[in-house]
């Protein structure tokens, strides 16, 4: 279970998050929707442990324990995974090498045995197949020259391989055409389960047709301003965010 309590965050003295309260129980999928600049991406980075953010108040608990003092690697080992909106290119590092390093680093941190190379290859290849990631892609530099769809599939592949309990998907639908959206969503849905929570951050309702959330939160000006069921996403699609922007102002 992820609990965010009265979270206040500033960047260079500028308040971005102004008291976020949010709980994602075990096994549930929640969506956060909101206009650009409402602090959605900041929230995802803060949960994942990126520097450059000052947490001035509040706490983030994962399974009852604060993760604020943990570095990003410790958080992913604890089970909190962020799929990036803009995955980063690392030239010269073969994707396969990166995946292997990541898997074994996480396994080591979890006191699990490191996988042998053949076991590793089998695991990666079978998951890759489900996400239509071609073997050729695994040989290329990580995210280098990948299309938008390929990058997002790679994020979901990493998510599947690192076996997190909490998945945060930051605008996973951005830059995807309809076919890519379907493949990525199927990949995400395959990972849904009673032991895994998800926080799906998106600007558009479209993604939520594929990944149907248990709850939808509307975020504006660094706060959760409304919470409802999946139908709330449809309402937003009709009315837009204008109402909430005014509320916040």
């Amino acid at each position, binding site marked *: 279970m992820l609990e965010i309590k009265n979270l206040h965050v500033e960047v260079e003295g500028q308040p971005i998050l102004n008291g976020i309260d949010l709980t994602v129980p075990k096994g549930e999928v929640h969506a956060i929707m909101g206009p650009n600049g409402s602090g959605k991406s900041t929230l995802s980075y803060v949960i*994942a*442990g*990126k*520097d*450059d953010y000052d947490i001035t108040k509040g706490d983030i608990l994962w399974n009852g324990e604060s993760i604020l003092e943990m*570095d*990003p*690697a410790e*958080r*992913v*080992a604890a089970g909190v*995974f*962020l799929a*990036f909106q803009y*995955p*980063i290119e*690392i*030239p*010269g*590092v073969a994707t396969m*090498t*990166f995946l292997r*390093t*990541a*898997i074994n*680093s*996480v396994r080591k*941190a979890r006191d699990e045995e490191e996988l042998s190379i053949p076991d590793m290859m089998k695991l990666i290849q079978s998951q890759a197949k489900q996400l239509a990631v071609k073997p050729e892609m695994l040989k290329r*530099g*990580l995210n280098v020259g990948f299309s938008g769809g390929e990058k997002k599939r790679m994020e979901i592949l*990493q998510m599947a391989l*690192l076996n997190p309990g909490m998945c945060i998907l930051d605008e996973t639908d951005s830059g995807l055409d309809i076919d890519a959206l379907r493949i990525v969503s199927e990949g995400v849905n395959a990972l849904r389960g009673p032991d895994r929570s998800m926080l799906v951050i998106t600007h558009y309702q479209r993604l939520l047709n594929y990944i149907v959330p248990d709850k939808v939160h509307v975020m504006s000006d660094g706060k959760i301003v409304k919470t409802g069921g999946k139908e709330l996403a449809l309402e937003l699609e009709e009315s837009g965010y204008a109402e909430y922007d005014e509320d916040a102002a």
Partner: protein
Amino acid sequence: MAAVKETVEQVKDIDVDKYKYGFTTDIEMVKAPKGLNEDIVRFISEKKEEPAWMLEWRLDAFERWKTMAEPEWANLTYKKPDFQDLYYYAAPKSTEGPKSLDEVDPELLETYAKLGIPLKEQAVLAGVEGARVAIDAVFDSVSVVTTFKDELAKAGVIFCSISEAMREHPELIQKYLGTVVPKSDNFYATLNSAVFSDGSFVYIPPGVRCPMELSTYFRINEENTGQFERTLIIADKGSYVSYLEGCTAPMRDENQLHAAVVELIALDDAEIKYSTVQNWYPGDKDGKGGVFNFVTKRGDCRGKNSKISWTQVETGSAITWKYPSCILRGDNSQGEFYSIAISNGMQQVDSGTKMVHLGKNTSSRIISKGISAGKSSNTYRGLVSAHRKASQARNFTQCDSLLIGDLCSAHTVPYIEAKNSSATFEHEATTSKISDDQMFYAQARGLNEEEAVALIVNGFAREVIQQLPMEFMAETQKLIGISLEGSVG
């Protein structure tokens, strides 16, 4: 492959935290007194039972050296060594006459084991076809053990210490020694010519493809011992050899001087591939101690269609002054230089290459990857020149620098001289920093800071790492990580 795997396993087993190769071996040493004069030169020559012509050669070099001054053009700042305060000859006592590995001081073998050197175990026990590495292990100044001699002999390959070559193959030494790096070439090379202690000698006969990678591990052990290795490799017509050189040194408080000379000669249609991994003690975090590495390495593509390829991974030493070069004398000859130079802490590197195009239709390629971290300084210095007769000379140079942190520096000093209008020289250079985004991304996937840096830097240097023989690849990737420990955060 088994031998390769064992090597990799052994390297893994070495507990490599910071500079963990900082141990010394307690073996009795035979030393010449401190300081340098004509008597010392005579002592060395006598100790090695050299012929008279060799002594004359050394004495001539010594006379010339006395008139020379240390070069000061490099982008390096250091206290010049006191040449009268060094030992010029030190040999482990136990080396007087081991005929086989069994006779070698076990403590010595243990040192190698700690370093993960596949000497006895891998070479002898594994006995695997295709993946063999013969080692002419150099312990301080004297070659101790040479393995695989018999098999090499079958192929007609000569691989021995240079002192042995002087006795057994004087005609080859007299014909080739000092023909690439003349004895008065530069201050350090001349000093080496006068006092060189030992090193490797390789001769590959015409048409022979050397059946295995040849490898020498250097290790500076005795306190205050100047190291003056001399290596000479000759690839006769139509032959091929790949040679590996790797080094580590124990932790010391005093600066240690190393001034090696390596000469390569490739005759018609011959190819030499020379790979180095250098990991000498770089000094502590304040720059105290550390090896001074002033090396002259030069290859002569003497024959037509010959090729010489240098690959170097420089991670150690307090001071590195090193420019493995190619003289492209033969028509259609090719020179290559692939380099990874990593500096961290207070290290200073001034390294690069010279590609001297003399023959027609010669080509050269330079790929240099400099990585600076800590408060270090990393300079690429390269010369590409085309003689007026070198028509259609071609060069491609790529110099990339990667900075980690904001206290280090990277410099690129390319010299280009084309005296021939048909020459085509290309130069590309980039300077970049490891971005916070890359670091965060890798960390968000479970890598700690040091793993993330090592991975990103290995990616940056990949083009060069791929040039290394299999035996060195895994070791190098590990070394890169070790060298950059503590460079972030």
